[in-house]
């Protein structure tokens, strides 16, 4: 069974962590995954960097740039992930923009994901219609989940369409924003989270963008199956001892 499915069947308040592959150093990708699993992360989203990340704020932009400048490529990432499943057991998704996938080759990309034990993908700029027409079969064949985003502005009809098209989880953006904005849970955000909760979607939901501490994490968990932390984590591992930074960061959420 797909590891993502299993996780959502077994657990609540899922904590998923995003980080940029090859940051802070090219060789850190696997070490960070291992450290995160050890300190209690439930799921990982490994970002493959892109030169023009329009959906990202300054922190993830900078980590992507540094990673690319240091020589990271999608090809190198798959090499680094070759032994992923020897030490990491939690679900792993790859997150990035569509152009590197296109250049790598969609079929080849799916094969490589399956081979190293990646469970799903998040490609924010891959439109639903393109996915349906050109990617879905390939993703299915390799047992990969494709995760779509929804925002407070996404129409209900479209949410149902997304729900029908995906089989991992739905990524609920706390607001229409680039990554790294702080989550301000006011009345409108709560109304939006409740509205989605009441749709009784077939897929679980994860809230992301702007989750940075225990308080915002708990809040998100009251409306969804869990939450995703990106920018705050990327900031936390910028320097210092990697293992220590990871475990100190994770302690805040496990208290």
């Amino acid at each position, binding site marked *: 069974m797909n590891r993502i499915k299993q996780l959502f069947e077994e657990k609540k308040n899922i904590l998923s962590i995003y980080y940029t592959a090859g940051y802070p150093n090219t060789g850190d990708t696997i070490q960070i995954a291992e450290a995160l699993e050890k300190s209690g992360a439930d799921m990982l989203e490994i970002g493959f960097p*892109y*030169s*023009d*990340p*329009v*959906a990202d*704020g300054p922190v993830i*932009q900078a980590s992507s*740039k540094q990673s*690319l400048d240091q020589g990271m*490529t*999608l*090809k190198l990432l798959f090499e680094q992930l070759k032994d992923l499943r020897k030490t990491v057991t939690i679900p792993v998704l790859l997150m990035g*923009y*569509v*152009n*590197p*996938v*296109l*250049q*790598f080759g969609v079929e080849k990309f799916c094969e490589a994901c399956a081979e190293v034990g990646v469970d799903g993908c998040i490609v*924010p*700029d*891959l*439109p639903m*219609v*393109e996915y349906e027409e050109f990617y879905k079969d390939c993703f299915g064949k390799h047992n990969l989940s494709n995760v*779509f*985003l*929804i*925002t407070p*502005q*996404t*129409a209900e009809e*479209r949410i149902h369409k997304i729900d029908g098209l995906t089989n991992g989880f739905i990524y609920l*953006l706390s607001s*229409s*924003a*680039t990554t790294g*904005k702080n989550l301000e849970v006011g009345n409108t955000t709560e109304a939006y989270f409740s509205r989605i909760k009441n749709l009784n979607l077939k897929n679980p939901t994860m809230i992301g963008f702007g989750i940075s501490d225990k308080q915002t994490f708990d809040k998100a968990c009251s409306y969804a199956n869990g939450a995703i932390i990106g920018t705050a984590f990327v900031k936390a591992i910028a320097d210092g001892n990697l293992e220590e930074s990871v475990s100190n960061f994770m302690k805040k959420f496990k208290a």
Partner: protein
Amino acid sequence: MLFITLGFNQGKKEKNMKYKVNEKGYYGDFGGAYIPEMLYPNVEELRQNYLKIIDDADFQKEFHQLLKDYVGRPSPLYLAKRYSERYGANIFLKREDLNHTGAHKINNTIGQILLAEKLGKKRIIAETGAGQHGVATATVCALRNLECVIYMGEVDIERQAPNVARMKMLGAKVVPASSGSKTLKDATNEAMRDWINNPVDTHYIIGSVVGPHPYPDMVAIFQSIISEETKKQLLEQTGSDQPDYVLACVGGGSNAMGMFYHFMDDENVKLIAVEAAGKGVSSGFSAATTYLGKEGVLHGSRSILMQTEDGQVVEPHSVSAGLDYPGIGPQHAHLFKTGRGQYVSITDEESLHAGLLCTQLEGIIPAIESAHALAYLEKMEFKGGENVVVCLSGRGDKDLDTYIKYFNL
């Protein structure tokens, strides 16, 4: 009856749709809307409404009134005598440089600001390279009293200082883009990020035929006034509305698409698109997209772009800020791939010399962008007597510093 043919005329099926956008937003293999979900509602709203709004009689009336009284259209089609003698062909210059604000860019911003108003938007954002689109956007925002934020690469802020001052004077906020190559591509990224963060009341006036569908089509429609007028003017001046060649420079490709639009289906008219070779196509400092690029996705559409094997966008180079872009619009990619258009390139040096030549032969100081198109005349071979139209997309005021430094004037 200018405004009868301008609208896309969805109802009356045009005789040939080979080069136009299809219902899915594609030109052959190119186009589409590769955007994150955060942009979907805005782009979808636009997609559902743009043709309806543009084809509306009141819209057409207001648009054409402004083009006439405010922009100063029709722009002249000038038979350049000394150029014609030099090349042994009839060289016509389509004088977009005489438009208010000094370039073709205002054709599009007038159209889009009216459209934004119809959609009830209160805030306008735009990216700019040379600053011409930024100025054209700031101008229409002043005209219609709308808030205006312009993103501009740090490098461009430096090399196009007069335009930065103009935008500020017009009441726009100019925000420097400091990521990547700090030029047009990065300014576009920043504008898209702004739009993501302001999903309700903001309209993004893209300055070229790039971006997610329907932008390339919408901008082409607004710019198509260039070839619409040209056809009429040619008919009056030469007795035929079909020239042998039309030439235009290509950054994202909006002046070229405006210049090509009504000639696309006249297969005997040769379309020549001139890209910026920078320091040479093999120098590593170039913006010759069709020569150096491969198919891929940038800024919301599938097109041709300069990129590494890994799919990372390569930073372009051109002396001209308006051509300093690693992609081209999807419709251009289609014209290139089908062979309908011929895509060539001109170096920094060639363009600067062509700019000086135009000044000395015709008394017109062209924008360095436009000088790329003029420079290609030097490389063409004429039998004699051909009719050739060059889109003089803008004037060179903004480039005086560059000209002065290069020629030690």
